[in-house]
């Protein structure tokens, strides 16, 4: 990939260098060596568009030798009549001159920018061969009056048309169509022959068109048409010409033109050289099809296409120049694109990244799986930890306040104060004699009853709905699981249902893990709700104005034991579910040690949960004490 790209770069790079060569190779068929000079001049002008003035001077300098060349290539005839013209015609003379050169001097077509018009010219010259010389004479006669006319009317289409006719039609046609005009114009000025004047003409033309630089120069050299002078003098004129012109040009013609334009661009000189004869045939044949009226339209189209391509070409060359600035031959840039052998390839990097990503995903999934059954993490996620932390801060503040009060006291009040504190602490001791209560204390009904009673005793507006809701969720889940189990055991006899169920439980171990996870989650969620409940209770106890401390203590104890009972009840039910599920499975399918471990873990986390709850209730003691001594 990279190699071929760099090769492309190379070839493109060489393409520009070879353009002048290409031009000269084309020319060698029809024109003299001076043509290659012009070709050079053109490519230079286009490439150094930034320094327009210079280029103009340069191309002008190159143009000077052109004058003597023309007669050489065309049998020395056409130039002679042109000489000795007044300077007043210079501008339009140059157009005529262009027409001449397009006929006679193909060299200008070196520059790929102006291929279309110049080709026309060339094709004309090729085809007409010797005939051109008379036509050139006609033109030379035609020239001055025409330019006069143009000067007066600024009727560029006219002159354009004329020049095209001159270039491509039979002499007779030209004579016929323009005889009256020619006669009339011929009387206006005389035709003088002098090489000097040609120079001045060119000079003048260059200075006139100087503002648009290389493009104008190319036009002069190619001599496509004189319409350019007007078209380019104002953009608005141009756009209008484009509109009218393009509208009339046949799409086929346009397409052909652009194809022809594009041809010399690929940097293979052989192609263009080969393409030339066929191309000129095409061009001439299509030209014949066109009527007189269409000629103007066609030339305008050519102009537009060529000027557009000119611009593109200039941009392209400019880009290459910028690219090559300080980096001749694009060596450094090519090195940038080429691959270093020790560097890893993109595909390798991508492969490694994918592997790494997969590994990370696996690890993350494992960690997630572990987290799902991790009590502390879940407890934290359910905001249990932070509520406990806040409760602890509150408790510490109360403790500090109590100590401050204690320090301020002495004597009997101090004893009385201490007695109160101890009394409350004792009242808050949670009896751990749950053995006698055989009734199922863990049900939601009992829990709700106890909680309601406790809150009534505490006289704080803390709602226990969250605790109840969490408990209900757990019960619902357990009930659902039990239902499924019952169905399973019932369906053991019905083989067809059994098979269906088996496919669902492909991994019995996973089903057990699922129950275990659910158990831990339920415990963590419940404990977190308890932590929040205790925290809110503490906050509101601190806001309370009057306290019945003993009742409060009783209520806290009642609440704590109710909540702890609930926790053990939940743990027990999950354990039952786990063992029941394990029993339903074959001993071959499940390792009973694993099941026991799961069950143990559920009980372990349940005791963990109870510890949190009891800790929370202990944190309430300073709060209650502070209430008691206020």
């Amino acid at each position, binding site marked *: 990939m990279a190699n071929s790209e760099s090769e492309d770069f190379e070839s493109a790079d060489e393409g520009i260098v070879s353009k002048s060569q290409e031009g000269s190779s084309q020319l060698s068929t029809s024109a003299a060596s001076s043509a290659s000079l012009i070709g050079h001049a053109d490519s230079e002008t286009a490439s150094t568009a930034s320094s327009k003035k210079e280029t103009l001077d340069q191309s002008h300098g190159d143009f000077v030798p052109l004058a003597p060349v023309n007669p050489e290539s065309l049998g020395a005839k056409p130039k002679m009549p042109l000489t000795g013209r007044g300077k007043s015609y210079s501008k339009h003379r140059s157009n005529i001159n262009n027409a001449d050169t397009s006929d006679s001097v193909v060299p200008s077509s070196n520059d790929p920018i102006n291929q279309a018009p110049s080709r026309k010219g060339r094709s004309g010259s090729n085809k007409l061969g010797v005939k051109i010389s008379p036509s050139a004479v006609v033109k030379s006669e035609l020239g001055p009056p025409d330019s006069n006319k143009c000067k007066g009317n600024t009727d560029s289409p006219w002159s354009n048309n004329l020049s095209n006719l001159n270039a491509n039609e039979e002499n007779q046609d030209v004579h016929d169509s323009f005889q009256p005009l020619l006669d009339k114009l011929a009387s206006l000025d005389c035709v003088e022959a002098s090489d000097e004047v040609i120079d001045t003409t060119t000079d003048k033309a260059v200075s006139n068109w100087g503002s648009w630089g290389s493009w104008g120069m190319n036009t002069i050299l190619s001599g496509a048409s004189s319409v350019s002078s007007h078209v380019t003098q104002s953009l608005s004129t141009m756009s209008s010409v484009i509109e009218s012109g393009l509208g009339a040009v046949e799409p086929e013609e346009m397409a052909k033109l652009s194809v022809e334009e594009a041809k010399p661009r690929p940097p293979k000189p052989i192609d263009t050289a080969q393409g030339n004869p066929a191309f000129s045939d095409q061009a001439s044949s299509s030209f014949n099809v066109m009527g007189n009226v269409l000629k103007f339209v066609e030339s305008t189209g050519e102009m537009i296409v060529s000027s557009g391509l000119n611009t593109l070409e200039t941009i392209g060359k400019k880009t290459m120049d910028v690219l090559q600035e300080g980096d001749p031959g694009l060596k450094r840039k090519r090195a940038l694109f080429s691959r270093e052998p020790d560097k890893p390839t993109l595909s390798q990097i991508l492969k490694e990244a994918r592997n790494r990503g997969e590994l990370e995903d696996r690890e993350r999934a*494992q*960690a997630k*799986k*572990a*987290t799902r*059954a*991790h*009590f*502390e*993490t879940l407890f934290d996620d359910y*905001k249990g930890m*932070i*509520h406990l932390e*806040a409760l602890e*801060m*509150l408790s*510490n*503040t109360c403790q500090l306040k109590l100590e401050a009060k204690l320090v301020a006291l002495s004597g009997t009040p101090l004893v009385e104060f201490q007695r109160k504190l101890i009394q409350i602490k004792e009242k808050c001791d949670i009896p751990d004699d749950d053995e006698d209560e055989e009734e199922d204390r863990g049900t939601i009904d009992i829990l709700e009853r106890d909680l309601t009673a406790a809150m009534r005793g505490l006289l704080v507006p803390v709602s226990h709905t969250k605790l109840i809701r969490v408990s209900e969720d757990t019960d619902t889940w357990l009930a659902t699981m039990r239902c499924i189990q019952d169905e399973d055991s019932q369906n053991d006899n019905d083989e067809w249902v059994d098979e269906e169920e088996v496919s669902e439980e492909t991994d019995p171990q996973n089903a057990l*893990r699922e129950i*275990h996870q659910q158990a831990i989650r339920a415990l963590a969620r419940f404990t977190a709700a308890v932590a929040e409940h205790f*925290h*809110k209770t503490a*906050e*509101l106890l*601190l*806001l309370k104005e009057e306290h019945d401390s003993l009742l409060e203590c009783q209520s806290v104890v009642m609440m704590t034991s109710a909540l702890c009972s609930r926790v053990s009840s939940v743990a027990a039910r999950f354990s039952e579910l786990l063992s029941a599920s394990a029993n339903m499975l074959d001993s071959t399918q499940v390792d009973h040690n*694993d099941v026991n*471990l*799961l069950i*143990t*873990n559920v009980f*372990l*986390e349940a*005791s*963990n949960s*109870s*510890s*949190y709850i*009891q*800790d929370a209730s202990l944190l309430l003691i300073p709060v209650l004490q502070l209430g008691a001594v206020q």
Partner: protein
Amino acid sequence: MSYAYLFKYIIIGDTGVGKSCLLLQFTDKRFQPVHDLTIGVEFGARMITIDGKQIKLQIWDTAGQEAFRSITRSYYRGAAGALLVYDITRRETFNHLTTWLEDARQHSNSNMVIMLIGNKSDLETRREVKKEEGEAFAHEHGLIFMETSAKTAANVEEAFINTAKEIYEKIQEGVFDINNEANGIKIGPQHSPTNASLPSSGQGAGQGGGCC
């Protein structure tokens, strides 16, 4: 979700200035026009990324009511950042700023980054406190200042994140001792728990081991 640091924030300010709404907008990206009165403190948490590091913001949204003042003071301790909020449509909430600031400075560590927030910037027509006044107050007391709207979410993210950036810079400068949790900064767990063990809490759990 593992994190590099955990920053504790507190949001303080008069009741009804929109503290809880700011938190809700930041954590849940939604706005609730009618909000229950906060009892004591509520919590919110969100992960943010600063300098390529995951930082968990643990936000303590305190009750603004005067009655809870003594309680909420207990929660200031150990906060790394504080958002001191007033309502631009109620002059008195701006006037109370000094008291809040004194409270915050007294009950928290001196390095705590405090961001002054003029909330409800969407209610431009009812504005009573000019932005310049807020800026001046912030400048005078060395606070960062921002006007926000919990309703339109304007500047809400910025307020929380800029505070975190300031804290993070202080950590980089060594102003905060990250090993002292009283500064409100915790270093995240180095390793997330793996399935190799089910670590049990130290509290009350006599039996060791685990399963799976």
